[in-house]
């Protein structure tokens, strides 16, 4: 039996994001949120640990009003209870890690699982910062995870070797996409998720972040964008270009 904590986040759906052609700035208004990619892998892995070895999963997300939807998805995938921490203020690893660590320190746990880098901001700082704040061993970038005699063992990819690493519990594991294929919960579980416990809490933390955004713009794309719908004409033109470059 293991007490499992999984941390995840919701992000703006970056694949639907458009860019303002005059300012080159992203248009965020009305953009839907979705569960972040590696967060799904983290939830899936937590559920697999529970299914294989037994235990209970607490899901924690640090988010705004939209976080309820993501939490419901996590509950439908197999998380047992949800805690939504309010007060998220855009990408700020200092604030996120401090908030998560403060909440986690009040809970009982053997293992914490989270994604190693989120698909929107790519900072990759949160797992290590939370681990250090809680004085836990950090097992990062796992592509495989198993529990062996009350220890956690992961496989991690290296440049020319993969490493099998082990540590005692409690420990924090960050996962990579390769670790699993997140499940799509069946409708019955989605319905049942509504009856699982879900708390919304506010946590007071004081962190100092000196980061100031100067600008955030899409790089100018000066591609020619000559697109042929007539295949033969396109082939003739493009073959010419490719031959020229390939010489």
């Amino acid at each position, binding site marked *: 039996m293991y007490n499992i904590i999984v941390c995840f986040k919701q992000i703006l759906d970056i694949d639907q*994001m458009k860019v303002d052609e005059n300012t080159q*700035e992203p248009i965020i208004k009305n953009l839907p949120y979705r569960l972040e990619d590696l967060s799904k892998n983290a939830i899936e892995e937590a559920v697999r640990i529970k299914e294989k070895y037994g235990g209970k999963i607490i899901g924690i997300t640090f988010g705004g009003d939209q976080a309820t939807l993501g939490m419901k998805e996590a509950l439908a995938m197999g998380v047992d209870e949800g805690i939504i921490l309010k007060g998220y203020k855009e990408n700020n690893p*200092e604030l996120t890690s401090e908030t998560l660590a403060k909440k986690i320190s009040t809970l009982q746990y053997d293992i914490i699982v989270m994604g190693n880098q989120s698909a929107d901001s790519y900072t990759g700082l949160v797992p290590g910062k939370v681990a250090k704040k809680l004085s836990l061993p950090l097992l990062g970038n796992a592509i495989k995870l198993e529990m062996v005699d009350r220890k956690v063992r992961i496989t991690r990819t290296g440049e020319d070797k993969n490493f099998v690493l082990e540590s005692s519990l409690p420990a924090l594991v960050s996962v990579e996409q390769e670790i699993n294929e997140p499940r799509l919960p069946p409708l019955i579980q989605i319905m049942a998720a509504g009856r699982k416990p879900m708390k919304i809490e506010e946590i007071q933390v004081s962190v100092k972040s000196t*980061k100031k955004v100067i600008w955030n713009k*899409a790089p100018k794309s000066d591609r020619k*964008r000559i*697109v042929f719908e007539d295949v033969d004409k396109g082939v003739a033109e*493009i073959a010419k270009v*490719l031959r020229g470059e*390939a010489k």
Partner: protein
Amino acid sequence: MKAIIFSEKADLASQLLTLFRNTFEMDLFTSSNENVLNFGARNVYRLQGNNLYVDNISEKLSEMFKQGSYDLIIIGSSAMGREIASLLSEILHLEAITEVMKIEPKDGIVATERFFFGGKTVIREESEARIFTVLPGLTDPLPVDSISKEFKINVEKDSAIKVVDMIEKPKSSVNLEKADIIVSAGRGIGKKEGLAVVQQLADVLHGEVGGSRPVCLDYHWLSEERQVGLSGKRVKPKIYVAVGISGQVQHIAGMRGSRTVVAINKDKNAPIFNECDYGIVGDLYVVVPKLVESIKEKLGV
């Protein structure tokens, strides 16, 4: 200003030393045993120990940072590099900014640029951060005439993590980052056998085959070393041909440095057509063989 440069990879260490040699006075710390002595570091410290891992390396680096009165720490971006950065930022109570492409210090403030929103945008920030991870591939390593002084440093402290086993990976067969021509396959090929068509085009162009994230990581039709994207390889060939690739943000960020981009996709609304120089809307199984024939004909193969 005095900087600690760290990378566990010799090649990336040499890139960072090349990139920052005119900005900072640099000492390199590395766990690599390969040559890094002629890239402009004042001192090179080789970290040694039986059980080197991110936790004890971070503690050693923070010790050296305080002793050597350094101003900042620049780390080569990798899974290990980001983990070390995150631990260092906690140990030293200094802010960290990861995956940067630019570091410009001025009056105690550091301006940085990095990808954001999965590579859709570039964000410029100013902060008092002192720890950075820097992306690979921003420059080629250029040697200098002088030779760094070399020291060995023992990391005595054991890691809390035990290495139970090491599994050799198949030797890497391709370096996409250095390829002049890349033909990449996306989900649109529909089946693994479809790679043969992509390979034919790559062959006739004397190029390498790459792939999108689904093709490499989800379906494993190609090895991960061929994945082009923000989380894979960032490539800059003369020609990049995207076959059956829709053009998700993180893929575009990986191939944005290409000189000429050609896209083949049956969906004329695919985002890749906004990021290409030339495109053909059509079934790749019709278009690519025609393209191969046409190129062969004119090359007289």
